């Protein structure tokens, strides 16, 4: 059981999906029950995995693991040959970088299912697709084989497309196809890079590739023309192909335009999952399958990444300030927040990296909470115009309290999770010990202020001030909505006060990663 636990976590939802397809669509409650179970069990398993099973490693352990050929020192590894002819394996495992995200995935999917109970349109197909989506997501986080990674990566697209496209808002078709095309455009480039890596190294194993790259043996020497593409060095273009593929998911500034559309059109649970996890796939992918494969290129372009990050931070904040659509505002805040991830990674310091990974997790909880919050008011008012509300705090005080918590978590109030990651990122970036990075830190602080600005302004327009007579009869946030939001907000507080419960887990792996990237491996 223990060595297949990751397989169970990944594929139990698939089992649930199969069951659901067998159930007649009339017995909706049964379907709901099955999908609830199919997400609940993995959540329990991953929770055990996180707090119980996962072993905190010492540097010594890493050395042993490296001897044993797994430079990442993954745990709960399962390796089964899949396609012998080209050496593709079913090779899964978790390390400090992925475990928290696996945990988050299972949590958010479970919450997503509960949140979906509110949608009367959601039927058999919906839950089936939702479960399929979970398979794809957790698959990406656990796979240690590049081919497998890519397969899971693509598997996510289709369910997402239909979930947005069928159950979305008025412009859902546009949003759905935009999402699909942007992501695919990125992933085909990834595929080429993957192919090239495979041909140069002769393996798909991510740890192996990482090791080779760290030893400077992954330079395209085994490829015609030394792997040069249009005059670009092998490492360079491989890096950029992979990076763009992931950057579109993050999303980083120039590639972000699919996000607002997708978010605005997607139904609430899907927005939650989209913002909560799908965006993290990008950042995670960079750490797992982009930087380690082309360290030289990473160091060469680290500053560019940081700049992109800062642009996202500030730009996202400003654009959010300009929104009148509640959900769009939150969506752009995601762009702003995910900018920190890039800044931290570009800084290439322990705290920068950890800030980035931490930010991924924290944004996962807080933004998910925000989207749930938007969903609550949207379900009642059936619009999201920030200027058309007012005085909600008097009509729905409990809802207002939750929102306040969510907002302040999002604007990085100390004591809440967001602050830890943002502070770490900024300190880390500043520690990069380089005037250019310090400038970036100063600029990015604009984002800090304006994030507060647009959130509080939204707060004022929606919750404070004169009651809008139209909405006097809104009933207070109900139990289901509470159940969805409470755990997320709880996590926001918990990890704000005790960040150690995340950092202890990721710290060894991050240091290992830095050592690898720094050529000290």
């Amino acid at each position, binding site marked *: 059981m223990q060595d297949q636990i990751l397989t169970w976590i990944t594929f139990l939802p698939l089992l649930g999906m199969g069951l659901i397809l067998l159930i007649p669509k009339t017995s909706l409650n049964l379907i709901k029950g099955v999908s609830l179970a199919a997400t609940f069990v993995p959540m329990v398993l991953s929770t055990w995995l996180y707090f119980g099973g996962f072993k905190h490693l010492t540097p010594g352990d890493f050395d042993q693991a490296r001897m044993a050929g797994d430079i990442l020192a993954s745990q709960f590894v399962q390796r089964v040959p899949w*396609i012998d002819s080209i050496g593709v394996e079913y090779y899964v495992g978790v390390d400090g970088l992925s475990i928290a995200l696996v945990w988050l995935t299972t949590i958010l999917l479970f919450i997503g299912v509960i949140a979906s109970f509110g949608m009367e349109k959601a039927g058999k197909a919906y839950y089936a697709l939702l479960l399929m989506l979970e398979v794809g997501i957790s698959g990406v986080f656990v796979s240690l084989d590049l081919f497998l990674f890519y397969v899971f990566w693509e598997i996510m697209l289709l369910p997402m497309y239909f979930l947005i496209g069928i159950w979305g808002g008025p412009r859902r078709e546009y949003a759905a196809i935009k999402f699909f095309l942007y992501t695919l455009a990125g992933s085909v480039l990834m595929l080429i890079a993957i192919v090239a890596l495979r041909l140069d190294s002769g393996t798909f194993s991510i740890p192996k590739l990482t090791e080779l790259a760290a030893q400077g043996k992954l330079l395209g020497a085994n490829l015609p023309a030394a792997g040069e593409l249009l005059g670009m060095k092998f490492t360079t273009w491989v890096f950029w192909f992979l990076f763009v593929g992931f950057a579109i998911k993050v999303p980083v500034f120039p590639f972000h335009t699919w996000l607002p559309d997708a978010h605005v059109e997607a139904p609430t649970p899907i927005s939650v999952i989209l913002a909560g996890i799908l965006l993290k796939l990008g950042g995670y992918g960079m750490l797992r399958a982009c930087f380690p494969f082309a360290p030289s290129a990473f160091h060469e372009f680290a500053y560019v990444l940081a700049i992109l990050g800062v642009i996202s931070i500030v730009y996202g904040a400003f654009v959010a300030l300009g929104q009148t659509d509640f959900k769009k505002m939150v969506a752009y805040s995601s762009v702003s927040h995910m900018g920190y991830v890039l800044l931290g990674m570009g800084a290439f310091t322990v705290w920068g990296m950890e800030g980035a990974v931490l930010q991924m997790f924290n944004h996962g909880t807080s933004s998910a909470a925000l989207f749930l919050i938007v969903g609550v008011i949207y379900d009642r008012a059936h619009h999201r115009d920030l200027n058309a509300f007012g005085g909600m705090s008097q009509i729905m005080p409990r809802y207002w309290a939750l929102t306040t918590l969510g907002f302040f978590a999002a604007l990085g109030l100390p004591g809440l999770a967001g602050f830890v990651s943002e502070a770490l990122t900024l300190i880390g970036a500043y520690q990069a010990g380089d005037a250019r990075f310090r400038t970036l830190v100063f600029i990015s602080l604009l984002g800090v202020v304006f994030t507060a600005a647009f959130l509080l302004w939204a707060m004022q327009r929606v919750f404070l001030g004169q009651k809008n007579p139209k909405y006097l009869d809104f009933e207070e946030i109900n139990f289901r909505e509470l159940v969805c939001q409470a755990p997320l907000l709880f996590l926001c507080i918990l990890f704000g006060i005790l960040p150690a419960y995340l950092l202890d887990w990721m710290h060894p792996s991050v240091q290992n990663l830095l050592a690898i990237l720094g050529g000290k491996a």
Partner: protein
Amino acid sequence: MNPYLEGLRGIQPEIVMTITALAALVFDLLLKGRESRRVGYLTLTGLALTSWFLLGQWSEAAPRTVFGMVAVDQFGNFFKLFTVAALAMVVLLVMHDHREREHGVGEYYFLLLGASLGIFFMVSTNNLLLMVLGFELLSLASYSLAGFHKGDRKSAEAAMKYVIFGGLATGIMLYGISLLYGLTGTIDLAKMGASDGGLVAQLAQSPVPVGIAMVLILAGFAYKVSVAPFHFWTPDVYEGAPTPVTTFLAVGSKAAGFGVMLRFLGAIFLRPGVADSVAAYGDRIGLLLAILAAITMTLGNFAALRQSSLKRMLAYSSIAHAGYVLIGVSCMTEAGFSAALYYLAAYYFMNLGAFGFLLYFEGVNGNDSVDSLKGMGFKAPLISIVMVAFLVSLTGLPPTVGFYGKYLLFVEGVNQGLYWLVVVAALNSVVSLFYYLRVAKALFLAKPADREAAPAPVLTGFVTAFGVATVGLGIYITPLRAWAERSLDVLRG
């Protein structure tokens, strides 16, 4: 035993098929058009028999040549088996095509079988004469099939265009062959490719005629597999011809064309370890094909973007896929060829399924426009969901056979340093997603339609089977790939 009988045993499948064709014709005459479905079943039985013999040959390890012409080998076998499968599907389509019942379907089956017979011969010979004969047999049958709907103007026009363009192409190819014969003094590919004499000698003396001959012959093949700039007939003919015929042309005929092309190029240029002027010349031709591939897939995809008729869209998409396959060919390596073979196999699955879907909805909606599919996904869920699988596979997303095919092509492309081509192909697959998704969108992203869709269990069953294969082979890849590689052994000159 008498070598003559030996030889006959070598062409058992062809014989069976010929008999089936004649039987179908006669049977139809006897039935006088009543319950013509029976003819279809007869044909299917014949095909089953044929495939049984084919499998018999498949198990044979060593390739052999009978009557000094027909090469009985894995390579031919590969295409023959797929042709039979395709033909079976087509026959099924004919039986479900609401427009076909009243026509004299006997001829229909007769022509289809004849065309397949042509394919059988053209893919399984090293002798240019037999290859041309098969080629022409296929072509002539196809012409008449394209115009099978006598009263239908589109059908007639399609036939005319096909025959004119086809005639031109065949003529050009023949002229090229005549030149090649003049240069090498033989019409046997094996002899031509032999590293002593044959082409090697000629290349040194007279490169220009060789070049002309090559281009002319390749033009003939390119026309068959509709590679730019010889693809122009494709959309019109595909649209005008009856859907089953289109299916046959898009799958059987095209694959056969590639079969010939691969055998021709393989026999002459595919000689691992030998680095002589011919091998070098092969690389030049490879580059030529690479350029054609890029043009073809781009043209096909972007033209498909704007099609409102699903049938015509599939026509253009088939052009684009020809471009993809050509990547493998242009690598001029075994791996490349096997990748091409694999992709062709994948192409069989996806496209047969897609055309089955098309025909089904032609029956339901009375037309083939994408818009008419709006919301039908909820009315005929199974076939529609399977169609989504085909679309995904056609786009080349995992976990489908189409993805793996593309993957292999990319691998070989990168391996041969054709980065630019691979990038073009990758971006093209994004573009293709764009029109494939329009179908998925019409099916599921619209409000459920108010019309009902009459169920067609058999057809749906077959399509679903193909769907399962499309996904299943995408997850369990090894056997198909092994087969594709195995089929190539004979090509090593």
